[in-house]
């Protein structure tokens, strides 16, 4: 039986790795990967707590919803990144400083 705190600590470390990627990376795709890490840390917490919730299984159901939302967000974000590249010729988030024209 794995203690619950170990799941939480693993997901905390994973969340901080994702936070570091979002804050420091100069490439929109790597920022996107960092966001995926943070989402996965959240899903890991949901799943870890759902072990103690057999009747409602709310954790597992909402983990599934979160996985679906992450997939949708990746599809939209990649489309946006490709369009931004077409317009600015760069995908460095700090160089994209105007919304239109």
């Amino acid at each position: 039986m794995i203690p619950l705190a170990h799941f939480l600590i693993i997901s905390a470390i994973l969340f901080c790795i994702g936070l570091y990627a979002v804050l420091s990376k100069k490439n929109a795709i790597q920022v996107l990967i960092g966001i995926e890490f943070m989402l996965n840390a959240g899903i890991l917490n949901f799943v870890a707590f759902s072990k103690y919730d057999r009747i409602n299984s709310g954790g597992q159901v909402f983990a599934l919803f979160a996985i679906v939302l992450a997939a949708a967000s990746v599809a939209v974000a990649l489309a946006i990144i490709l369009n931004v590249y077409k317009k600015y010729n760069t995908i460095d988030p700090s160089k994209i400083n105007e919304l239109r024209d």
Partner: protein
Amino acid sequence: MNMEQVVFYFFAAMVLVSAFLVVTMNNLVRSIFLFFVTLFSIAGLYIFALADFVALAQVVIYVGGVLVLMLFAFMLSNKELLNDLKLTKRTALYNFPAILVSVIFLFILINVIVISKPENLNWLQNRINWLQPSDNSVHQIGIQVMTRYLLPFEVVSILLLMALIGAAHIARKDKI
């Protein structure tokens, strides 16, 4: 230390090491392939939390969908983008604020976890409500999605439809 713990900590180490390598690696394609290893190992951790269906969904949606989408979008798009993706090396000083913020945040999170002692929470003490390895959790999830969580399920399906139409609209070539 029994077999379960050995495999669990092996998967946990694999998640953390590969995630760390993903964010420190300079080659983008290589870091996307390492992201693949991370997601697979996270699916392994889900199995240890007795969520086999979620682990399967993770493998199918993340590994089969998201990663292939990421690779395809950048390998099938124009060549200049791939040339432009050569990542520039950054000094440690440049990354220092980000490292500082994430380490402080990690310290806060672990402190909270240690202080709050999640094992002793009141609503976790009811042993009848604990998931057993022999339980059929897919059956339970199916019933719950169609009864108790029907509204979130419908909202998610509408949002997925919106994201699909939006992504197709944004990604099309001609000007509107």
